[in-house]
């Protein structure tokens, strides 16, 4: 399978060879000394050539030396001191005196809504910025995943093993019950679609492939900063989609006076992190669940010889105990063309290569180059990046290539134009199937199967004529497939491919009408084609099949704004205001083709190769939102700020009577440290804001319609949709207030940012689940109120800062509490999703946090003992009960960064406390006798006694119970009964805490001394690791994060997720 395109890598190598031969303008060495006001030399002062990343630091005596061109500017900066810029002239010596600056933090400029830069001190809302360098430190191929543990209040979970799989991002909890809860991603003003096209089955663990999120298309190396706007006040200007927060990405651009080439080349290795532990004492076969005794081998007489044979037809591991003295015919002893194995009995022992050996070391190659140049009037940047990943599952891979070009030019004194264009091609090959499906890797390995299988032997998965050889034969005599394909057949014959070709970019112009007034016009475009095809080969257990899904997405935003900025009253009062309009047009289409009744010609994967007529379905959708918005900000004397904003949307998805909705915002900032004269307090600010954000719904939710099916006996069957639509839907409304405190002490050696917020969503647009006896399974309605409130803290400490050594410590913490305050009358629970098997559901329950797992529970007596039935199994409640929420109590991240001369070292610890998930692998791995616990403590020979009490359980008509006559349970039951009870028994036994402590990132970087690299530039070598350690798990067989099957609201179901991975790698960065 030659999916790895080596071509791109070749081109990069050529480019690299080319650029190292570039030489630059005349350089000279400038030296000098940096001191403070008292003439004390300052060690560790950063000296940077402005507009570049080249620079140095002063030594212990405050001296420095740097190679620089005449005409460039040197910037001298040191925490707690004012920053000084000096133009390099004819002189070769520049000495500088830095002054103490108590207001250093006030200088911070951040990018706010609509890309408008603001002084951070003037902002009345919380925002947290992560630099591109920090995001790319550990070379995560998905920039959004790098937010994990880094930003307070942002919860990112992703299943790392699933090859570019989905990430769930929640900012300050879920504000909608069934609608989108993902934040809006904006790249240079372009709202970037982050759709996830995973089937419901993939999300619930029912089975499917995880194709990841469209947000994966951003090249992390192009990111200059990523800014998280958490609250409504910050986000309101982006309209309804921003009600879940905004992730604002600013890409790198060319800098004035600098020509720069940056080359990154790296490699990352992925290893499986946590796998379910399997028993190594008993082999495959059916056991006898009614007895403690062991099962034996079957017999088959072939050519007059009677052999012991394994029970191939049962995909379980309750078979005979391993015994090197027993010899049996294994599954591969029946094909004459494999003469070495044919009718050769082999010992019944645990295999040399087992399930754990099935997984490869994944490898990711990451190569990128970026060119940038800036002049006084214009700048340009172009980058090219390629990432190739070979997955941990055999024969899977992902290849992503992205090109970014952006530039701007000051055409005249008044007119500035800018444009950017990005092309990203994401090529997935055979993303592994997850969940409860015959194609699912985990289902084949850990949910059902036989433990004696040798995975090296399974690799011989077909005969010369192409017939599949599976271990799961119907019988010794009959080699046809009972349930399970050979896993290697699945991976090499039943493959899937996906390709997303995406273009996004913008063009814009800014025109200064007067000195105070300017106009901005912008067009933002985002468009992609996403094609997925997959097939099932002739000879598989399932019917041969080919399907192709073709999706086209387009969003265009047209925007015009008029800005007014003026300072009045001797600059005491600053006014900054704008008004604008936006039109957003979305178009989406999907065409799905499927073969029917099998394939005619083996190996031909085309819809025309369908045995029965192929089926094609089509879906088209359009949406338009027109908006008018405006904002006015007043600042008084640089310490008191007030901002008022408002936006009105007209949405095509709402009924005409309700399609216009307005939402206002107000925020204030008070920099109280300006009024105080306290040496210890470097900065102090109080902020307060309130905002509303309206939200529309999806297209076509207003009228009931009939859907056509596959023509049947000459007639197209039509049926009503299962969801009752509503012509009177109103927009849903988020009301959000926030208070925050920003403090910095001791010349900013200690700083903190604290926030408290309360967010309430009302008139939620919900396809509320109703009794199907109404004729519909759900009905669209405005109902309910959902509240999220929480606390966030971000603390930065610099305990040590000397000439050669510094230590920075960052702690972030977020605790979100959600509560569903009401639904509609008479309905206390709304089902969000149904997990596979046993009626376990994910729900929104009135009075409870969002995302409650519901299912049957253990029966407990008054003392809290589990009650055991008369057959020795745990009793199960008649009613379903709340078994916990999927949302954590809190998340926190602890980052430590150390710098010693050119060496830097850092690590990030990510902690989650609370939250639950349900594991299907736990059910079937116990049911089928694969998991270690099914054979631990000799339970298969001796049986076991479940801890608990026996007793009489009496139920009333409502299914409530009382327990009487309790006595300690002493009933011995067979291990297989205990194992199968994970399926037959209550649901609570398969629900686990999602706590974890992870060593999320560890980095070690070394910048080569410049004397080694005369004339080349900077070379930085970074070694890194991700997810190297995990502790504190409730069930050691699973990483709780793998219960992420998509980026939508369906979470908390482990249904056969791929294991998480730990990664380590190396990256080299060259700068010229």
């Amino acid at each position, binding site marked *: 399978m030659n999916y790895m395109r080596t071509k791109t890598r070749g081109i990069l190598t050529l480019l690299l060879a080319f650029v190292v031969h570039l030489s630059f303008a005349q350089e000279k060495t400038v030296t000098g000394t940096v001191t403070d006001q008292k003439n004390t030399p300052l060690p560790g002062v950063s000296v940077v050539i402005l507009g570049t990343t080249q620079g140095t630091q002063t030594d212990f005596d405050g001296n420095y030396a740097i190679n620089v061109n005449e005409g460039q500017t040197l910037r001298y900066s040191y925490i707690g001191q004012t920053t000084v810029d000096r133009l390099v002239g004819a002189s070769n010596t520049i000495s500088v005196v830095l002054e103490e600056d108590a207001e250093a933090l006030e200088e911070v400029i951040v990018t706010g809504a609509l890309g408008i830069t603001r002084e951070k001190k003037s902002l009345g809302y919380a925002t947290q910025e992560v630099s591109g360098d920090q995001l790319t430190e550990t070379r995560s191929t998905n920039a959004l995943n790098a937010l994990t543990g880094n930003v307070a209040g942002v919860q990112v979970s992703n299943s790392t093993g699933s090859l570019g799989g989905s990430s769930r991002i929640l900012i300050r909890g879920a504000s909608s019950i069934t609608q989108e809860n993902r934040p809006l991603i904006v790249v240079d003003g372009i709202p970037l679609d982050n759709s996830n096209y995973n089937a419901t089955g993939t999300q619930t663990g029912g089975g499917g492939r995880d194709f990841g999120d469209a947000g994966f298309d951003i090249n992390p190396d192009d990111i200059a900063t990523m800014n998280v706007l958490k609250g409504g006040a910050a986000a309101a200007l982006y309209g309804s989609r921003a009600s879940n927060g905004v992730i604002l990405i600013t890409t790198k651009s060319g800098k004035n006076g600098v020509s720069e080439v940056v080359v990154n080349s790296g490699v990352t290795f992925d290893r499986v992190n946590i796998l379910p532990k399997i028993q190594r004492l008993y082999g495959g076969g059916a056991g006898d669940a009614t007895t403690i005794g062991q099962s034996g081998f079957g017999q088959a007489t072939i050519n007059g010889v009677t052999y012991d044979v394994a*029970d191939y037809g049962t995909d379980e591991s309750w078979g005979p105990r391993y015994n090197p003295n027993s010899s049996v015919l294994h599954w591969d002893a029946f094909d004459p063309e494999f003469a070495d194995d044919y009718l050769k009995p082999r010992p019944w022992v645990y295999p040399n290569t087992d399930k754990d050996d099935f997984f490869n070391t994944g490898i990711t190659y990451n190569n990128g180059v970026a060119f940038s140049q800036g002049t006084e009037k214009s700048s340009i940047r172009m980058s090219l990046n390629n990432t190739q990943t070979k997955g941990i599952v055999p024969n899977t891979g992902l290849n992503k290539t992205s090109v970014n070009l952006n530039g701007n030019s000051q055409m005249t004194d008044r007119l500035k134009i800018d444009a950017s264009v990005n092309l990203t091609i994401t090529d997935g090959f055979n993303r592994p199937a997850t969940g409860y499906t015959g194609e699912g890797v985990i289902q084949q390995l850990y949910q059902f199967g036989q433990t004696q299988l040798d995975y090296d032997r399974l690799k011989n998965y077909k005969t010369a004529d192409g017939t599949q050889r599976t271990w799961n034969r119907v019988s010794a005599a009959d080699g046809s497939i009972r349930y399970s394909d050979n896993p290697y057949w699945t991976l090499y014959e039943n493959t899937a491919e996906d390709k997303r070709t995406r273009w996004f970019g913008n063009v814009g112009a800014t*025109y200064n009408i007067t000195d105070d007034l300017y106009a901005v*016009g912008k067009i933002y475009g985002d468009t992609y084609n996403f094609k997925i095809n997959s097939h099932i080969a002739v000879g598989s257990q399932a019917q041969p099949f080919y399907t192709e899904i073709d999706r086209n997405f387009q969003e265009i935003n047209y925007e015009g704004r008029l800005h007014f900025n003026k300072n009045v009253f001797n600059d005491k009062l600053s006014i900054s205001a704008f008004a604008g309009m936006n039109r957003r047009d979305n178009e989406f289409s999907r065409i799905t083709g499927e073969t029917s009744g099998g394939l005619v010609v083996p190996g031909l994967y085309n819809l025309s190769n369908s045995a029965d007529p192929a089926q094609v379905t089509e879906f088209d959708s359009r949406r338009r939102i027109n908006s008018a918005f405006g904002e006015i900000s007043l600042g008084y004397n640089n310490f008191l700020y007030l901002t008022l904003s408002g936006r009105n949307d007209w949405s095509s998805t709402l009924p005409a009577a309700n399609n216009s909705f307005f939402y206002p915002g107000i925020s204030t900032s008070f920099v109280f440290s300006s009024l105080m004269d306290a040496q210890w307090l470097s900065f102090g600010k109080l902020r307060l804001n309130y905002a509303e954000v309206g939200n529309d719904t999806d297209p076509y939710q207003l009228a009931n319609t009939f859907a056509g099916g596959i023509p049947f006996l000459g007639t197209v069957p039509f049926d009503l949709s299962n969801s009752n639509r509503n012509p009177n839907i109103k927009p849903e409304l988020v009301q959000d207030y926030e208070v925050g405190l920003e403090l910095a002490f001791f010349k900013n050696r200690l700083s903190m940012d604290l926030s408290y917020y309360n967010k309430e969503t009302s008139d939620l647009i919900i396809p509320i689940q109703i009794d199907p006896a109404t004729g519909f399974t759900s009905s669209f309605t405005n109902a309910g109120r959902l509240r999220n409130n929480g606390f966030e803290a971000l603390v930065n400490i610099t305990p040590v800062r000397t000439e050669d050594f510094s230590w920075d410590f960052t702690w972030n913490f977020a605790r979100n509490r959600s509560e569903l305050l009401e639904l509609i009358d008479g309905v206390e629970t709304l089902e969000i999703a149904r997990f596979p098997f*046993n009626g376990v559901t994910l729900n929104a329950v009135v009075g409870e946090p969002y995302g409650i797992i519901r299912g049957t529970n253990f029966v407990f007596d008054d003392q809290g003992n589990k009650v055991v039935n008369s057959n020795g199994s745990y009793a199960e409640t*008649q009613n379903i009960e709340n078994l916990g929420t999927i949302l954590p109590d809190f998340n926190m991240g602890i980052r430590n960064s150390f710098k010693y001369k050119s060496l830097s070292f850092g690590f990030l610890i990510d902690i989650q406390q609370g939250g639950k998930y349900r594991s299907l692998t736990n059910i079937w791995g116990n049911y089928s006798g694969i998991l270690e616990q099914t054979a631990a403590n000799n339970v298969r020979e001796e049986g076991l006694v479940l801890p608990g009490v026996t007793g009489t359980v009496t139920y009333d008509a409502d299914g409530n119970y009382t327990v009487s006559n309790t006595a300690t349970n002493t009933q011995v039951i067979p291990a297989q009964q205990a194992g199968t009870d994970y399926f037959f028994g209550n649901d609570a036994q398969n629900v686990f805490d999602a706590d974890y402590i992870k060593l999320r990132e560890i980095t070690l970087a070394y910048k080569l001394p410049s004397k080694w690299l005369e004339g080349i530039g900077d070379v930085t070598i970074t070694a890194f690791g991700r997810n190297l350690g995990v502790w504190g798990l409730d069930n050691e067989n699973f990483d709780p994060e793998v219960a992420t099957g998509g980026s939508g609201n369906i979470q908390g179901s482990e249904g056969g997720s791929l294991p998480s991975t730990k990664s380590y790698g190396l990256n080299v960065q060259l700068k010229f």
Partner: protein
Amino acid sequence: MKNKYILILLAIFATSLYSCDDGLEDININPNQPEVVPTSNIFTYATKRYTDFSRDSFNSGRLTLPWLQYWGQTAYADEDRFLYRETTAQNIYDNTYLVATNLKAILDQNTNEDTRGNAAAYGNNDNQIAASRVMLSLMFYELTNFFGDVPYYSYGSENETFQGLAVNETSLPVFAAQVDIYADILKELRESADMINTNEPVFISGDNIFGGDAVKWKKFANSLILRVANNLRAVDAGTANAAIDAAIADGVMTSNDDNAAQTYDTADDNASPMWRAHITRTDFAVAAPFVDLLKGDTGNYGEDPRLFEFAAPITATIGEVKDGTYTRSEDYDDYLGIPYAFRNTNFLDRNTYSFMSSKILSPDYKEVLMEYAEVQFIISEHEGFAQENYENGVGASMERWGVAAADITAFVSALPTANQENVLNQKYVALYMQAHTAYADYRRTGFPNTLVLPGETVTLPARQVAGLPPDNRVTTYVFESGPVDPSLTELPFRLRYPQVLQTLNGANRSAAAAKLSNGDVITSKLFWDVN
């Protein structure tokens, strides 16, 4: 100059943005799905969808087909021990209403004065209404027989407890009393039969049960009255007899030509539900108690040649059954049933039990809703187990399955005399592949009396014993029901309400559960089950 230019541009931009505001609603017109479609196309969907779910591998294959011991599972026979899946109960419940709401859409389009004219293009309005009411009656009858009280919809009654399919009035429908539902179904069927205009087609196309034949729909309506009324016999003989007499007078099925069956297509996507279940899996075989009855090993009916139509010889592989290529055998020794609910079926040699026949495992197998034989058995029971109707019933069943005329005559003439046991046991044989109906009969009468009951010891045939692994060779086993309810000594009397109703319609479900004899458990008997 330049300023002005820019301002003009902005003004044009602004105007263009808002001049199109009126078009917003047009953008939201669904290009994928229409709001009105021909009623005949809805009817095509409804009848197929009903048998698709009702007769599929879970709702029939892992429920009543094994419980009545027609079939057994070849592995993982948990449902055979009454550990049916929660999703099965929910599936039956949900889908009944979801199909019913489509039938109601047909009723609405044919009733509403605004749409009645358009709907008439697809068939006589009254006839469309009647056929839809008949289908609704059949479906609600099966639903209420599984659960007891359920939310109910009636086209012709104003009863305030009938609150099903009324999403715009309530999302919390009360559960109508089963006794009221029975009465209303009888009324609905009576009115349907009476309103059919036999001179006009029911649907001009898309009717895959009777091809639009109004006469057959009328007979079907009357015949269904027999089924429903007969099930009331033990609790309300007066109502039952009156309804049956009226139905017979109006005309019930008179031959196999009148049988009501959903037709299927030969393409896999539109094939019969059991064919679809067997495209990639082999989970079922014919169960031993049923095979033993047909072989004459149990009961007193002798060797029944329908065995060769119902099942394949043990030598036939599932591939041969699906391809229809196995060699037909008329030797009763070539047939063995799979031991029912044997915990160790996986140990059995796979050539020691019979799969179903190719006749059943075929893509265009017709799912029978009701047949002439059943009508005759009911009339026999109605007449105090009349010999003639009993013989007609057996004969019609054999004819329907393709038994040679001479063999029919021989078997029928050797039948033991009609009495409750013989009539109902033979009716059970005739209801093969219509296990929901047989399940109701079993609960009402206790027949067939040839089933293995929980706690009973079963002796395995020597051929099956010999195929077991030496370490696990047993000659007998005990039929243990699953631990759902250790007190179970015979078949469950009902299904539990879907758990999700505790959430979605809690108060009404609780009220219905409270009216059950033991609460919402499988051992609570329904009102007509008094044997």
